[in-house]
């Protein structure tokens, strides 16, 4: 008898394989793989003396106290019982092989050199969670809620609101500090939709990253003990968001969907010592918290790519129509961006757009300017023209002429977009009252 080392695979050969096996031989093997595995064995080569019911030479396989068969013969021989490619799988983690050869391998006086067998075995994970694998007398208790198989073993877990007990299989209500951090998920009263247990003090905390808003959607059925006159005297489902009470619910009318506008929600479920209501179930989801739709102060404000909804980390770029300045108070801004913050507010308030004012045009020495537009003002697109004190000066302008417009940049520019104002140059040789002799 040779115990097989506890490995996860190996070979088993008849004595002397691949030479013919000896007569009068009994060999046994005990295959023992680690717990959580089963043994799977196949014959790579099988060549034994055939006989009716394998009376002379044979291999006998046993596992789980059951006989898996008695094999002998040659591939294709009419007598005997050749195993072919059959896979032998144990239910437990042991398998037993027994080889037996009688005193001869003669046939009509001729010795036949039967070579015996070569078998290969391997440990295969036992999926303890597969109900079909639960052995009849399996001492292992079943997982009460969830079973999780892994190579070589398994573990149990419980539904939300339950805690795995020390036996690692059974679950007991434990919902005093359920924490949910996934961006969506389900939570429900224990045993839902079966009636919930009595005397519960369940506290479900949903904690998501800042900037997310949790939406609670109640599924049907929704049933919490209630009283016709008094509001929720027996059992209460309280929902709080960042300490702010959102509501206390009971009865059979579902609260439907609740936008909490918060990334932190606490759900307290308190029950008294009796009741047969089926409880509640929530599918929570989250979305980036929304900010209020930005509203411009005036009709000169442009919000780039206005969106129907703005959420956390979204931003808006605000500018003004040409000729208007972005103003925050009295401060002129070169640009404006507001970001939707994690608390659902914009990180800075909407600016205004005030018309560009170019200020008083530069005075022209020995000349003057006059407003073309009425009423005269220095706002964007106002137009002035420069004149010199004729006839004593004459105007010298750039290519852009003597008309200046208040530009979007807040400067007075001529038609050539130049800021340089004209000049008044003296007119020479033109007396107002030149000598003119009359008498001749």
């Amino acid at each position: 008898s040779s115990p097989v080392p506890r490995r996860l695979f190996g070979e088993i050969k008849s004595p002397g394989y691949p030479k013919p096996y000896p007569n009068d031989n009994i060999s046994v093997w005990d295959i023992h793989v680690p717990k959580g595995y089963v043994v799977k064995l196949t014959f790579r080569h099988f060549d034994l003396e055939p006989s009716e019911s394998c009376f002379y030479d044979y291999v006998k396989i046993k596992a789980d106290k059951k006989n898996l068969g008695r094999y002998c013969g040659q591939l294709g021989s009419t007598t005997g019982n050749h195993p072919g490619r059959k896979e032998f799988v144990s239910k437990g983690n042991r398998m037993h092989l027994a080889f037996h050869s009688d005193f001869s391998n003669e046939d009509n006086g001729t010795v036949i050199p039967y070579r015996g067998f070569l078998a290969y075995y391997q440990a295969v994970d036992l999926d303890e969670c597969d109900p079909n694998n639960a052995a009849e007398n399996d001492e292992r208790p079943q997982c009460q809620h969830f079973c999780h198989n892994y190579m070589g073993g398994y573990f149990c877990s419980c539904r939300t609101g339950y805690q795995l007990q020390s036996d690692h299989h059974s679950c007991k209500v434990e919902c005093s500090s359920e924490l949910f951090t996934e961006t969506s998920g389900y939570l429900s009263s224990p045993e839902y939709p079966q009636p919930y247990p009595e005397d519960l003090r369940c506290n479900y905390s949903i904690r998501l990253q800042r900037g997310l808003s949790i939406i609670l959607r109640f599924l049907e059925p929704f049933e919490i003990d209630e009283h016709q006159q008094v509001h929720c005297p027996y059992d209460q489902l309280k929902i709080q968001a960042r300490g702010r009470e959102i509501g206390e619910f009971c009865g059979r009318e579902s609260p439907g969907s609740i936008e909490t506008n918060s990334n932190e929600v606490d759900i307290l479920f308190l029950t008294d010592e009796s009741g047969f209501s089926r409880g509640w179930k929530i599918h929570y989801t989250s979305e980036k918290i929304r900010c209020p739709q930005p509203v411009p102060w005036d009709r000169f404000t442009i919000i780039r790519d206005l969106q129907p909804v703005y959420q956390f980390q979204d931003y808006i770029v605000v500018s003004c129509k040409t000729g208007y300045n972005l103003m925050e108070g009295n401060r002129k801004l070169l640009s404006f961006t507001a970001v939707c913050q994690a608390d659902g507010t914009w990180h800075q308030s909407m600016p205004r757009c005030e018309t560009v004012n170019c200020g008083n045009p530069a005075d022209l020495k020995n000349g003057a300017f006059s407003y073309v537009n009425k009423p005269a003002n220095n706002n964007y697109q106002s137009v002035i023209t420069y004149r010199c004190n004729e006839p004593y000066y004459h105007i010298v302008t750039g290519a852009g002429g003597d008309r200046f417009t208040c530009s979007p940049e807040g400067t007075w520019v001529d038609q050539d977009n130049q800021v340089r104002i004209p000049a008044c140059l003296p007119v020479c040789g033109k007396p107002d009252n030149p000598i003119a002799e009359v008498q001749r």
Partner: protein
Amino acid sequence: ILGGKSASRGSFPWQALTSIHGRGGGALLGDRWILTAAHTIFPKGLGGNNVSLDQLAEKANIFLGHTDVEELHKLGNHPVRKIFIHPDYNPEDYYNFDGDIALLELKHPVTLGPTVLPICLPDTTNTTFYMDGHMGYVSGFGVEKNFISNNLKYVGLPAIAREKCQRWLDSKKRHLPIVFSENMFCAGFLTIKRDTCQGDSGSVFTVLDTESGRWVATGIVSWGIGCAEGYGFYTKVLNYVDWIKGIAKEDR
């Protein structure tokens, strides 16, 4: 001015009254330059006093904007920033008024109006203004019949052909080494008593350029032999236009 008339206001709005070494005249160019004769700043025969141009600039008084001397003084002086004397002018050479031209830069540009207006410079391609008989007008606050004038007078004088000037000069100068250079011209009459005189120096001889309709300074009262005893001699501005523009270099 002898044999002239009183100028109306606004007829010679370029006329300046200068007071540097006594009374002189000048003409406004642009809005901050006074054209005048160099000898009103450095008179001939003044000899060794080494007054600097800056000191002279400090001392110079320039009046503009009226025909009456009293009124001019009331209007106030236009201080001078800098004086530019033509390099060819030689105050030591008593009988040589070559290069008798100067520019005074005013500290502050003046505001032009009907009584203060600049005179134009001649177009360097146009020499008709110096042809024999071409009429011009000279205004000035100079002496009239031995009396200094209290108001601006003017007189019309014809330019005279160079050879006539030279012939007359030869007959008058009696061995005086008087120089009649290319940079001068003469104007006036031999017998009619119309002329410029002391105190008119620096004033400009102007002609009406009929093409442009503008009055142009073709000469500067420079020198003569007596007053109204023949021709007067004027600095030929045409020959100095580049020098003037080089200094005044219109700052537009």
